[in-house]
């Protein structure tokens, strides 16, 4: 509900994300024939960076020996 605590919290996060977009867009370089990355409001704009990270950035590189070789092939191994 507009005016509720949760609304206020989300709105403050949203305002912070607008600041972040401004910063991200300042460093984009335009080159002939290509569109540089641009940043703005999307479905994640009312999530803090921490919330976003905890929800969506969950892939990792394990210590698994097969994870970091220059080349690992099960075909070559066999």
């Amino acid at each position, binding site marked *: 509900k507009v005016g509720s605590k949760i609304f206020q919290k989300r709105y403050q996060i949203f305002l912070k994300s607008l600041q*972040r977009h401004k910063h*991200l867009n300042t460093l984009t*370089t335009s*080159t002939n024939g290509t*569109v540089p*990355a641009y*940043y703005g409001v999307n479905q994640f704009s009312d999530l803090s960076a921490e919330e976003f990270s905890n*929800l969506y950035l969950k892939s990792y590189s394990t210590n698994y020996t097969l994870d970091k070789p220059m080349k*690992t*092939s099960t075909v070559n191994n066999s």
Partner: protein
Amino acid sequence: LPLRFDWKEKKFVTQVKNQLSCGACWAFSIVGAVESAYAIKGHSLEELSVQQVIDCSYLDSGCNGGSTVSALHWLNQTQTKLLRASEYTYKVQTGLCHYFRPTEFGVSINGYEAYDFSCCEEEMMNMLINHGPLAVIVDAVSWQDYLGGIIQHHCSSGEANHAVLVTGFDRTGDIPFWIVKNSWGTTWGKDGYVYIKMGENMCGIADVVSFPLM
């Protein structure tokens, strides 16, 4: 190598999915790679079950995260047959691994390969063309606000936190870029895709590159 190549344009890539509030990007990435590799081998393009990988890949942590390479290792080691997505549907949470009676349909892999291409993205292009879309892990912190265009800044290598699928590349313009399928729905980025500058291991896109063998 061609200036432009994209498995999506050749109709070998399934629709962009939305993982919603489940941190299983790693499963979406490798299932996307298996779907495409299966179709490239001459079969029909099928939507395969991400939920099956989330529930059953014991080397990973379901919606709490995982690794593309360990998921491929599990698929290969167990020779698990991936069911159609419609048979083992997406639940947005980790569940118990369901075993189905052997049916006529199921896709298994014949091996997999995993590379560090941080030195040599030209080789990565070669692999893409010869084997199909590539599962990669990237630093996606700045992707929270991405709307479109080619990412050339605000990304680190060696700090991977998200898994995606590279479907192609485009070197026809001044800035060559990878074409990357994400799993945050079609309203994110450019119809669910993101473009990343080639040649500088941007976002660590070439650090851990893997794909299934069919």
